[in-house]
C-alpha cells in the first residue's frame, strides 16, 4: 500500500467510525464535551466508559461554586480579539468533570473557593462573585504572582495556581482553544521537514539534514 492507499483506507474507516466527521464538527464545546461522555468510542474499554458515565452523573460543585469558578476562569482566560473566553469554551463544566475524575483536587478546589469568599467577606462583606470586578481583580492580583505574594496569601496562591492550570488546560484543549493556539496537525499529510522560510529565519541551511 502506498500513501494514497493509506489515506483511502483511512477515509473509508473514518466514514464508518466518524473520525473525520467529528473532527469537522463545530459549535458548542460544552455540548461536544457532553457528547464525549455519552458516546463510547471504539477502543474505549467498558470499565472506562462506565466510569465516564458515572462521573457525568455525579454532581460535585453547587451553583454558587460553579458561578465562582466561571468568574475566575474568565478572569484567567478572557475573551480577546483572537478567541472567546474560558466559559465560552466550556471550561467550568470541564473543571467539574476533572475534580471528579481526579478526586484529589476536590478538596483543594472546594476549600480554595471558600478561602476566596472568606477573604472577600472580610474585605467587602460579600462573597467573591457578588463583589465589583475591581474588587475581584484586587484580590486576584494578590494571589496570581507567586513571587510577589505575601506569606499570609500563600494558600490563595496555591489555589489560584491549580485553578489557572485547570482553566488553561480546559481552554486550550477545547475546539476554540486548539484553534487559538494554532495547533496545525492531526491530519493526514507528508512531513518534509521544517519549512524553508522558517529554516532561514532561524539561521539554518535549507539543504542539509541537520540544517
Amino acid at each position: 500500500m502506498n500513501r494514497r492507499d493509506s489515506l483511502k483506507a483511512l477515509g473509508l474507516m473514518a466514514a464508518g467510525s466518524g473520525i473525520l466527521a467529528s473532527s469537522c464538527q463545530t459549535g458548542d464545546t460544552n455540548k461536544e464535551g457532553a457528547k464525549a461522555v455519552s458516546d463510547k468510542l471504539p477502543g474505549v474499554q467498558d470499565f472506562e466508559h462506565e466510569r465516564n458515565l458515572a462521573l457525568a452523573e455525579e454532581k460535585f460543585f453547587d451553583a454558587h461554586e460553579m458561578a465562582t469558578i466561571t468568574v475566575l476562569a474568565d478572569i484567567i482566560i478572557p475573551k480577546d480579539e483572537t478567541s472567546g473566553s474560558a466559559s465560552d469554551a466550556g471550561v467550568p463544566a470541564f473543571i467539574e468533570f476533572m475534580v471528579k475524575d481526579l478526586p484529589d483536587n476536590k478538596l483543594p478546589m472546594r476549600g480554595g473557593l471558600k478561602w476566596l469568599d472568606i477573604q472577600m467577606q472580610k474585605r467587602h462583606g460579600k462573597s467573591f462573585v457578588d463583589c465589583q470586578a475591581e474588587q475581584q481583580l484586587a484580590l486576584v492580583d494578590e494571589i496570581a504572582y507567586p513571587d510577589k505574594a505575601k506569606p499570609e496569601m500563600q494558600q490563595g496562591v496555591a489555589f489560584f495556581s491549580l485553578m489557572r492550570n485547570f482553566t488553561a488546560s480546559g481552554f486550550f484543549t477545547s475546539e476554540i482553544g486548539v484553534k487559538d493556539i494554532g495547533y496545525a496537525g492531526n491530519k493526514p499529510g507528508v512531513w518534509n521537514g521544517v519549512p524553508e522560510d522558517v529554516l532561514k529565519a532561524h539561521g539554518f541551511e535549507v539543504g542539509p539534514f541537520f540544517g
Partner: protein
Amino acid sequence: MMTNYQIKESPEVYDAIVVGSGAGGGMAGYILAHAGLKVLMLEAGPFFDPAKDALQLRMPWESPRRGASTTRPFGDFDAAFGGWQLEGEPYTTVKGTEFEWFRARMLGGRTNHWGRISLRMGPDDFKPTDGETEAWPITYDEVKPFYDRVDRMIGIYGTVEGIRNEPDGIFMKPPKPRLNELYIAKGARKAGVPVIPGRGSVLTEASPEIKGRGVCFYCGQCGRACKVYGDFSSSSCLVIPAMKTGNLKVIDNAMVREVLTNEEGIAIGVSYVSTTDMQEYAVKGKTVILGASACESARIMLNSKSKAHPGGVGNSSGLVGKYLHDSTGASLSGFLPQLLDRKRYNEDGVGSVHIYSPWWEDNKKVGFPRGYHIEYGGGMRMPSYGFTNWIPSVNDKVKGPDGQARDKGGYGASLKQDYRRFYGANVGMAGRGTALARKDNYCEIDPNKVDKFGIPVLRFHYKWANEEIAQAKHMQETFQSIMHEMGAIITSTIPGADTLYGLEAPGKIIHEGGTTRMGNDPKSSVLNKWGQAHDCKNLYVVDAGPFVQQGDKNLTWTILALSMRTAEYILEEKKKLNG
C-alpha cells in the same frame, strides 16, 4: 450439593501453544503459522485490532478528560490497555526495594503503544568488554541475519552511520528533524554529544516485501496504534497476518495459570482461566512457547510446579526470576527562547524519534560500565491535559513581548498571550541506559498472596546500585551542558544526589528483562542459546526473559530477532524428529 467445578479440556493437540501476543509471542506465532504448524495463541487481554480500535486522529475534546492519564498511564488516547497497576492483579515488593510492573492486557501487548524506537544491540552488547557485565552465549554476527530479516519484514527508518556498537540496518528514509530538534542537534554537538537521525519501525516508504500495511501519513500518534498499520504493532504486523494463514488461532481473555507437564517433565500444554467466564481450561500442545513478558513468563514457570519440576518448570537452576533488569532513565526539561512566538505549521512528523544520541563516551573516563542513549522531545504537539502547566511558572524567565521584565504567573490577556507565545518552545531530553543484570534483583512468587484468579502473585526485590546512579548523574550533567549550548532555559528542578539524580524507579522505563536468562551452562542459566529450557526440552521463552544483559538499546528489535531465531530452531528440531 455438588459444585460444578471442572477443567474444560480441549481434545485437539496443537503443534505449538504460544502464551502472549506481544513482540516475542507474535513473531513466534507468525513464523510457525507460516511454516504450516497448527498454533494456538493465548492472550490474557481482549482482541485488539488497531484498524478498528486505535484512538488515532481524535482531537483532545473527544476525551472528557482531554487526554489526562487517569485510567491509562500515557493518557486517554494511548493504545495500552493496562498500566503499572491492574485491578485485581496485584504484585508486591520486598521492603526497602522497589519495582513498577507495567502490563498491557490486549492483543499485541505493549507493542500497540510503544515508542517504535528500534535499535539493534551491538557486538559489545552481546560480548561486553567492560569486565563487569556478562556475555551472552551468542554473538552479534549470529543475530545479525535475523535483525536484517526483521528490518525487511517489518520496516524501519534510519541512516547508515558505521558506528561500531550501534549497528546499521536495512533502512527506509528517516523523517527530517523538527525545528527544536535542529537546535538540539546543534547544541548537543557543541557539547560533544553526537546526534544522528532516529531509527524507528514506521513505514516512511512503501516496500514490495511489506504487504497489507499503509505508509505513514505523519500524524505523530504511533502511541495510539495505527489504523493503516503504518508502524509496527505485533497485533497488526504479526498476529492478524498469522491468523490469515488459517494456522493460528487466538483465544483472548485467557489468563495462563501454568505449564502442564507429564511424569517425565515434558510440557504437554497449559491451563488457563477465562477472564470473561472465570471457567478453567486446559489445552494440549507439542511445544509450549512463553512470550508473556519477562516477569509474567517467569511467574508462569515458577507457578508450574510438579514432581518433575519441584521448583517450577525450567527452574532446576533456581534462576527463574533472577537477574531482572530494566533500563535506567532520567530526564530534564527546558525551553528555547529562540522559539517563542514561533510560526505555526504542522510538525507532527512520525510518532517515533526523529533524532537521538547513541552512546558516545569512553567508559574509562566516565567511571561506570556501559552507557545510555538520549531521546529528545518538544515542539508544537497536539494540545492535551496539562500541556500548558509549565508556562505560568517560567514566564518571568524572559522579557515580555513589550521588552519589559515581568512577574511569574499572572492572569488575563497577558497570560493568554504567554500561553500562545511559549507553545511549542519546550524541549526535553531523556536518557535510557544499561542497568546491570544482577542476581539479587529478582522477582519470585509471593508466598502469601494470590490475584483475583487465584494465581500466586509476584514479589519483587530490586535496588539500584552505584553503577546506575553514576549513570544518572552523568545524564544530568550532559543534559545541562546540551541545554546550555543550545541556549535553552532549564525549567525542571535539577535533580541531585537526594533523588538519585532523577533516576526513575526500576520498571518505569518498561524494558524489563533477564528473568529466564540464556546460557551454555544449565547451572547458571535457565535457557540454552536457542531460548529452550535446559530441563524441559519442548518449552521455550521468546520475550525479554532470555536476555543475559540488555544494552542501552530498547529491547523490542532484539526480542523480534531472537524470537524469529527460536521459532526457526523449533522448526528445525521438528524436522529432525520427523526424520
